[in-house]
């Protein structure tokens, strides 16, 4: 159409004009196959990737639909080469299938013998494939199901896994929906996952990913292994499951550094699974300890490499990945795709925010001009020392002071990377400090106190990045971060995104030292959030007093 909301660029990005009448319809139409890359205020950018297109194929969309959608909403004629490429890419998915053969067991079945020939000739499949059954089938060693899928994605011929799953040991699980119920998008996410068999659900922080996990468990009603990032997170999963499902404390086991319980529902940390003793992973027996019917991966974008290897051996079990972002700093998105499964559900943050399920947030970057002596130290420092120097600039204490004072009475988190700085800050503003060294018991106590409003200020190190639930934190002040990690920024913002009881706007401050690498890293980290539509306001530390007026 001549004035559609979509502009298709030759580099496979799609630009969606948000203020257009048809923007909403167009967004729904392109969401299945295009990855939202950034969503600032006027024009949202989506990208067509091979993985995205295969995700769409896995969800039952065909190339014709994709092409029609592009043509329907595009303002200008769509580059012909792009349409050809879309059709070509999509046609590659599913030409190979993993199926159960009545006689030979697991086989790789090709709808196109030429593709099978190409794949079997490749060096990378050597050792993964067994005997050739006929022109279109070749035996796959069941243990290599995952590796084969990984390799096939790399070869550009992703296989459709139709070999089914083991049922696993049945265990009754029900959602206890007393006074609450799954939100519509959560229902959709569970449905999407279950229908697809295995895969990843992408939801913003605070949008209730745990409940999607619980929903999937109820749907499965089997023994379940839940893999989470750390112990605190494990406890939160346990509490949430006890509260939201018919499961009791006795049915849920924790498998961590401190406790090694194996129960019908077991929550294990990545850390313990990847612990090596004398060069071998000593806790892998957990995976075979029960006949798990479902494996849930929390924060799938953080999945460490060894877990990928383990997951490759779990291909016969249903796998659910939960994450806020598919962006991985290490670029291993394709392994998530091949080993956990295609994306099954996705909703842009802003949409969910608009539905009122997560809190609106305001982000402010405060730029601090370093005093001359610090600038000189910085200018002459070794490059590897520079970030630390800039990030821990002493002037930041004053800025934090001002911000804490401004939000007096609100639940405030101060987040940082460097322990010295955090100790100093905690002392400076008179707040408790949680770091990796803080015992779990103490952590729990402080979190509970913070949750209950007993204390309003808390200084945390990066242990708080993941999976801690601080429902009433409404102000976060970031003083330093892991260099330019975008996903860390997203996680930290996620801390304050849970809906507030009073529906207040959350505040996210980043304090950076001007004209230093700190500023560059901050820019990189913000990019992710700015792209999600959270525009940053930048103020000078000197103008902090006027902030109220500025807003």
């Amino acid at each position: 159409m001549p004035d559609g909301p979509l502009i298709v660029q030759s580099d496979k990005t799609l630009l969606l004009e948000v203020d257009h009448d048809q923007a909403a319809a167009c967004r729904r139409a392109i969401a299945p196959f295009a990855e939202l890359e950034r969503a600032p205020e006027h024009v949202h950018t989506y990208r067509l990737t091979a993985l995205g297109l295969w995700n769409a194929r896995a969800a039952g969309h065909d190339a014709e639909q994709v092409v029609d959608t592009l043509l329907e909403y595009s303002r200008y004629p769509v580059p012909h080469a792009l349409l050809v490429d879309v059709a070509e890419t999509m046609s590659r998915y599913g030409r190979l299938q993993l199926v159960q053969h009545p006689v030979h067991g697991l086989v790789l079945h090709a709808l196109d013998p030429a593709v099978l020939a190409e794949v079997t000739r490749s060096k990378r499949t050597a050792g993964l494939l067994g005997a050739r059954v006929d022109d279109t089938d070749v035996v796959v060693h069941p243990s290599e199901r995952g590796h084969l899928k990984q390799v096939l994605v790399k070869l550009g011929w992703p296989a459709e896994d139709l070999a089914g799953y083991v049922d696993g040991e049945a265990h009754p699980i029900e959602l206890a929906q007393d006074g609450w119920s799954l939100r519509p998008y959560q229902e959709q996410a569970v449905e999407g996952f279950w229908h697809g068999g295995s895969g990843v659900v992408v939801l913003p922080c605070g949008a209730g990913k745990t409940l999607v996990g619980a929903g999937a468990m109820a749907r499965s009603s089997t023994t379940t292994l839940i893999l989470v990032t750390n112990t605190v997170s494990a406890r939160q999963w346990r509490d949430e499951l006890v509260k939201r499902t018919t499961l009791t404390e006795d049915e849920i086991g924790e498998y961590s550094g401190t406790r090694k319980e194996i129960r019908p529902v077991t929550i294990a940390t990545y850390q313990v699974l990847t612990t090596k003793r004398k060069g071998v992973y000593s806790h892998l027996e957990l995976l075979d300890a029960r006949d798990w019917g479902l494996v849930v991966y929390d924060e799938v974008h953080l999945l460490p490499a060894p877990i990928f290897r383990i997951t490759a051996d779990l291909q016969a079990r249903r796998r659910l990945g939960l994450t806020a972002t598919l962006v991985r700093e290490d670029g291993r998105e394709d392994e998530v795709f091949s080993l956990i499964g295609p994306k099954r559900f996705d909703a842009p943050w802003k949409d969910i925010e608009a539905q009122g399920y997560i809190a609106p947030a305001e982000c402010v970057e405060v730029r601090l001009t370093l005093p001359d002596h610090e600038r000189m130290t910085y200018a002459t420092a070794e490059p590897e020392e520079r970030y630390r120097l800039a990030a821990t600039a002493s002037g930041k204490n004053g800025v934090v002071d001002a911000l804490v004072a401004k939000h007096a009475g609100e639940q405030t988190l101060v987040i940082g990377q460097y322990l010295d700085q955090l100790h100093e800050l905690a002392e400076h503003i008179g707040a408790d400090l949680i770091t990796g060294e803080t015992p779990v018991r103490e952590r729990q106590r402080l979190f509970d106190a913070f949750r209950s409003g007993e204390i309003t200020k808390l200084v945390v190190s990066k242990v708080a990045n993941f999976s801690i639930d601080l429902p009433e934190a409404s102000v976060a002040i970031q003083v330093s971060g892991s260099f330019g990690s975008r996903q860390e920024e997203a996680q930290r913002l996620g801390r304050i995104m849970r809906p507030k009881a009073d529906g207040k706007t959350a505040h996210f401050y980043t304090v950076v030292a001007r004209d230093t690498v700190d500023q560059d890293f901050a820019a990189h980290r913000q990019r992710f959030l700015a792209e999600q539509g959270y525009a940053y306001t930048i103020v000078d530390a000197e103008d902090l007093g006027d902030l109220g007026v500025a807003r």
Partner: protein
Amino acid sequence: MATFTGYLRARSDDELVALLVRRPDLATPHPATLASLAARATSRSSLDRALTWVDALVLQVVDAAVVLADEGAAPTREALLAAVGADDADGARDVDRAVDDAVALALLWPDDDGTLHAAPGLADALGPSAAGLAPPATHEADEPDDPAALLKDAPPGAAQVLDALTWGPPVGLLPPTGTPAGDAVAWLVRHGLLVRGDGRHVVLPRTVALALRGGRTHRAPALQPTAAGAPVRDPRTVAAESAAAAERTVRLVRQLVARWEQQPPSVLRAGGLGARDLRRTAQALDVDDAHAAWLVESAASAGLLADDREEAPTFVPTLEADVWLAQDVPQRWAVLARAWLASTRTPWLVGARDERGALRAALDPELTRPWVPRLRRAVLEVLAAAPVGAAPTGDDVHDALRWRSPRSVPPRAAVDAVLADAERLGVLGAGALSSAGRALLAEASGRPDLGTPAHGPVADAAAALGADLPAPVEEILLQGDLTGVVPGRPSEQLEELLDLAAQVESRGGAVTVRFTADSVLRALDSGLPADDLLARLSTAGRGRVPQPLEYLVRDVARRHGRVRAGAASSYVRADDPALLAGLVEDPRLAALRPRLLAPTVLVADASPAELLDALRARGLAPVAEDASGTVVHAVAPERRVRARPRRTDPVHERPLPDRAARVVATLRRASSDAGSDAPASAGSDAASSPAPGAGRGADADGASDVDGTGAGTVADRVRAVGARRPAPGGRSRPAPAGAAAAPATGVAGTPEPGDVLVVLREAAQSRAEVWVDLVGPDGRPDRRLLRPLRVEGGRLRALDPRREAELTVAVHRIADATLADPTTP
């Protein structure tokens, strides 16, 4: 019987002009007489050249004409049509066109009675197996009259053997004896249906093949391939993609020129651009090396870049580039496109290795091929011949090109490269010829009828592109993440602003840009103050500049200019500030523009030597120092230049119709002069060219004097000689009445070799006998009656009927040749 020369002589001026335009080699060098024109037109090289550029159907027609003439009489047009196999009306129309073409090229010529004769020498030029037939039998063999009837009794397999050979090639491998196939072949040989070749091969005799072909020479006419199967693109898509590509190319060339203006790459010793410079350019333009090579070549072809021919030569933008830069996108594109179409450069060879294994560099003077412009145009013509919007594949185009000139098929790689270039340039859009491309072709070939129906006959490439370019957009959507989106093609001003102050992230229907500290700094560096930049952004952004962007600009502006740098040619340093202050104020030094940078440092705009001289003149005793502060004694630098060879630019020459017309006028004058002396002997001449004047002796130079005598027929020549000599026609016999143009008579003097050749060729074709004056090794002339068989490679092969011997004579030993009087053999 008429002759080829006579036929040419009877052509009107316009027809001759048309011939010279179609066969430009005939006019270069300038032929003096119609006879030498005829000689040239029947020479092997000229015929080969003409055959090279005829299409498959014309080749079939001339093949058929030669074969039919060999088999009996020269065919009529109808007979030709039947022989080629034009059964339906469409086929007949095409074949008719091919016959007309062959006649227009003087490959065939029609007799008065409508039969078509092949030009003398054509049979030789076509080679021994014209139409896939064996050469005509040299002696009468006992070949069966009706092979089809004979085949009834043939052993199994015989029919298949004949089937395989019927339509050529006529030579087959002899199967081993004892096998069924061997027996079949043996049977066929026994019955004269096949002939033994060289022991391992058998040949299907021409008569048998023709009988099996049912009297035809070809199975079916080779009709022009149509791109009917090619996908047809939406005209909107074609226009959009072509416009996008054109705009991109213009933009990239602009960036290329701007970049080379700042950092001119040096010229390799062999001429050309170094691989490293090419890669750097490619990276700067964000394209691959091959694309960059093409851009560089295109810009150079358009005269925008050139070797500056300095001591250390570099490639720099030309003055023309400034003119070009000032134009609008469509005009700029047209300059590039026209230059591309006419260029002899082969950019696709850049990066490949030559015969010596060296890398071929871009702009290497050796990368020219004279046939490239013709290929480009041929490719575009093929595309223009396809339906509007059709996007033929490389295979389709190559097939069509093969049909157009089967004797000179362009290399596939070159065709693909031309198609790729055309796509990059926007001459194609989504694989189909765009209206701009069509206009470009129309303009280059002077055929406005090629313009698309949609736009009417647009013959101006720039205007056609202008119509396809989307309307420029003045507005940019600025966003909080420091990006901006122009939802369309940015206008010139906006493009310039974005070039200056932002970094382009993606292009296509829209342009997305990102503002970074570096890009803003670039804008400030170019002299745009922060406030102006914000004002311009605000205007373009409908008054909305997001806070982070404004902050970014202000923040960069704050840092901008903290450090300053400048140029000075020399300096003075001294420990005495008062002394330096005095120097700055000294009017005698004012010309050196001295100024203080610090109390003890003074800089000046003069060379150190000048400065030293000036200081000495002022009575100071300065010493020079080098970079490390060591005192040095200044020595005048030695300067030398390298003598460089002159490069000559290739001469661009193309026989234009008016040039051809001048040639024809001269020819006419020469022959009509001759004709006016002897009107009676050349009736047809007189009819076609009434004698305009008679003062030939006065206006013709020496060469044409001699040539002039050979004009037209031998009879003419004799008359002409007569005009010059007091005793004309001494040895000539009178021409028979009625056979006006027949070369029936005479021999005289030393004629032009070309005339002799044409007489011999005509005789060879018509199997006539000729009186030949041979000069023996002792210089003595010897007059013999010969039957020429073939004239080739400077030799005459002929039969001496009286001595019953065949002889071969070098043509330069033949002093003269005259047709023996056919009436008195």
